[in-house]
């Protein structure tokens, strides 16, 4: 009976994993990259590299923002100001223009204007090229693309649920989880793939469990609405305003003009109260007698994603209310789970550890997919030796593996190349960059379906390697902040770090391609060489 249970779990592990592994790989790669989405966006806007300079106090930045907004955001009904922090040196200003009567609505964000400004003067930074930057990768990892966000989130949630099933059944199946904890035997075919799969899964197991579970938690109100529906009798809005009271309310305008209170004393008051920096300022109805100013604490080292806010009267500067300073247990649990998933609290070192664990996750998914192909090929070895063709399923999986594992790094690399090579003034530039991402990936995937061979692995891995490893050179040629300049202290460290990481990932891919050199005629039978190094880097590269 016991053996039967374990075997049925092995079956569950195999199929729940295989069914969703290619989407999961994309989600994992894009999600891992999202740990550095600010840095990626900075890399993709070389016009801003020079501005990433002196830190400015949040009081000073808030004052500069207020002056700038009063000059430039005439007639706006809401202001959104993100103050500079350790990972975003620029001041981010946003406002919505009131839609004129008779004017067609341009969608939800149609009338929203946003720009980056110098935090000490409030002047607009030299207008950077338009790009979605790291934001695209972040959205990609739960909204996918070219489909409605709602369907995408259901799809990703479905995959995440399968992943959770896969992880738990995997733990049950893994008989020697402690005995084999440190075991990796390279160059032993299927054995090595299994070892690599086990090692990347078990060593980062706390991370895998955490990220999958909290990933589901981030969208739990969508996946499991019944609790809220029952408790609030279907009134979702009341629930959200009670659960997340910090959201800017819908106060009616008085229609009487009144000057806005200066931000600096408010910021000082909030920082004294919290003992931490203010990260975000929003203003409702600026210039009106009913104006309110809301300050939100910057995410510090606190694990919860929920930050307290203070609401002030926008004319007198009187404190009206505070929210989120004393949170209930459930709310706090939700905040910590959400916080763990997005890791905004992480110091640079901890962020790097999250990134590394994310790469281990990519490697786990990729080795799992490869393992299925290697095992199935083994089962069909006799038929294959007799000159028969591989079964349809095997061929399909092998082709999808190439398209995903070797194809995703190509897509990432192409996205970054397009960012630098497309003309700066191009119409709808962000869309074009994204089209290059998916275009390159589609080509890789289709070509892989046509010829899923060892040579195809080699070619695609090499292409990915060249695209990624040459990014530092491209950066040097198309911006002033090449590696040398940054090492001499004349340029942002984040850009140099990006260059080095993609270089390492590219070299990893190159090594994998090298290991796939044509076999001597006699051992053609074993289709792929098997070491961890062969797969870790190529999946990893996607996450750059």
């Amino acid at each position, binding site marked *: 009976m016991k053996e039967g249970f374990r075997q049925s779990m092995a079956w569950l592990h195999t199929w729940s994993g295989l069914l969703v592994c290619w989407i999961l790989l994309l989600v994992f790669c894009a999600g891992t990259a999202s740990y550095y989405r600010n840095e990626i966006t900075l890399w993709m806007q070389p016009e801003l590299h020079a501005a990433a300079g002196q830190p400015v106090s949040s009081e000073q930045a808030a004052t500069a923002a207020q002056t700038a907004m009063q000059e430039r955001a005439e007639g706006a009904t809401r202001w959104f100001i993100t103050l500079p922090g350790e990972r975003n040196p620029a001041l981010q200003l946003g406002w919505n223009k009131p839609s004129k009567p008779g004017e067609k609505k341009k969608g939800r964000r149609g009338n929203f204007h946003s720009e980056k400004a110098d935090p000490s003067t409030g002047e607009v930074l030299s207008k950077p090229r338009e790009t979605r930057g790291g934001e695209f990768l972040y959205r990609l990892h739960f909204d996918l693309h070219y489909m409605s966000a709602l369907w995408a989130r259901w799809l990703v949630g479905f995959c995440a649920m399968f992943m959770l099933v896969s992880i738990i059944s995997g733990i049950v199946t893994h008989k020697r989880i402690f005995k084999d904890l*440190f075991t990796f035997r390279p160059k032993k075919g299927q054995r090595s793939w299994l070892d690599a799969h086990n090692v990347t899964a078990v060593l980062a197991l706390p991370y895998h469990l955490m990220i999958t579970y909290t990933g589901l938690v981030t969208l739990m109100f969508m996946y499991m609405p019944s609790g809220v529906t029952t408790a609030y009798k279907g009134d979702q809005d009341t629930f959200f305003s009670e659960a997340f009271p910090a959201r800017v309310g819908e106060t009616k305008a008085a229609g009487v003009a009144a000057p806005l209170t200066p931000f600096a004393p408010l910021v000082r008051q909030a920082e004294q109260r919290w003992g931490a920096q203010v990260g975000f300022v929003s203003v409702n109805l600026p210039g009106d007698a009913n104006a309110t100013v809301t300050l939100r604490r910057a995410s510090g*080292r606190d*694990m919860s994603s929920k930050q307290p806010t203070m609401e002030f009267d926008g004319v007198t500067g009187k404190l009206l209310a505070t929210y989120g300073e004393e949170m209930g247990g459930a709310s706090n649990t939700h905040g910590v789970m959400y916080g763990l998933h997005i890791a905004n609290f992480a110091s640079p070192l901890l962020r790097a550890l999250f990134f590394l664990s994310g790469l*281990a996750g990519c490697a786990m998914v990729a080795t799992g997919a490869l393992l299925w192909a290697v095992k199935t090929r083994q089962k069909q070895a006799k038929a294959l030796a007799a000159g028969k063709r591989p079964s349809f399923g095997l061929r399909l999986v092998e082709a999808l593996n190439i398209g995903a594992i070797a194809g995703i790094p190509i897509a990432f690399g192409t996205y970054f190349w397009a960012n630098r090579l497309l003309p700066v003034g191009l119409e709808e530039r962000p869309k074009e960059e994204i089209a290059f991402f998916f275009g390159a990936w589609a080509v890789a995937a289709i070509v892989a379906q046509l010829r899923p061979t060892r040579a195809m692995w080699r070619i695609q891995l090499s292409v990915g390697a060249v695209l990624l490893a040459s990014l530092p050179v491209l950066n040097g040629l198309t911006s002033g902040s090449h590696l040398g300049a940054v090492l001499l202290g004349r340029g942002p460290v984040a850009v140099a770090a990006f260059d080095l990481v993609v270089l390492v990932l590219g070299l990893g891919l190159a090594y994998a391609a090298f290991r796939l050199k044509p076999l001597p005629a006699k051992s053609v039978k074993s289709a792929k060489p098997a070491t961890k190094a062969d797969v870790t880097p190529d999946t990893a590269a996607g996450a750059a």
Partner: protein
Amino acid sequence: MEWITNFLVFALCYAGLSCLCLAMDRHYADLHGRGAEPPLQLRRRLRWAGWLALAFGLAWAMHSSGAGYGTVVWVGSLTCCGLLLIWLLPYAPRHAMLLARVAGVAALLAALVLAVR
């Protein structure tokens, strides 16, 4: 001093994992030749040292950066050190163990520096 704190957690994790690894027959044999088994007393000592190092690492991480944050740092360090150790083992087992000794000594020194300060 933040880096020395982080370093201590890392060094303890690496040294601890290496001790636990060396206490296992297979990995002891990797180093001392096929079929070699660690003497009972050595095995016991390695296990104790390994678990102690890991526990002390966790305690130190929690003490220096808070229970929640410290635990996350410690788990992340374990994953990182574990991957490094496993990657080194098949290719350069002696270097892996040399690194473990260095990490152990460095951890003692770092702990001393932090205690004196």
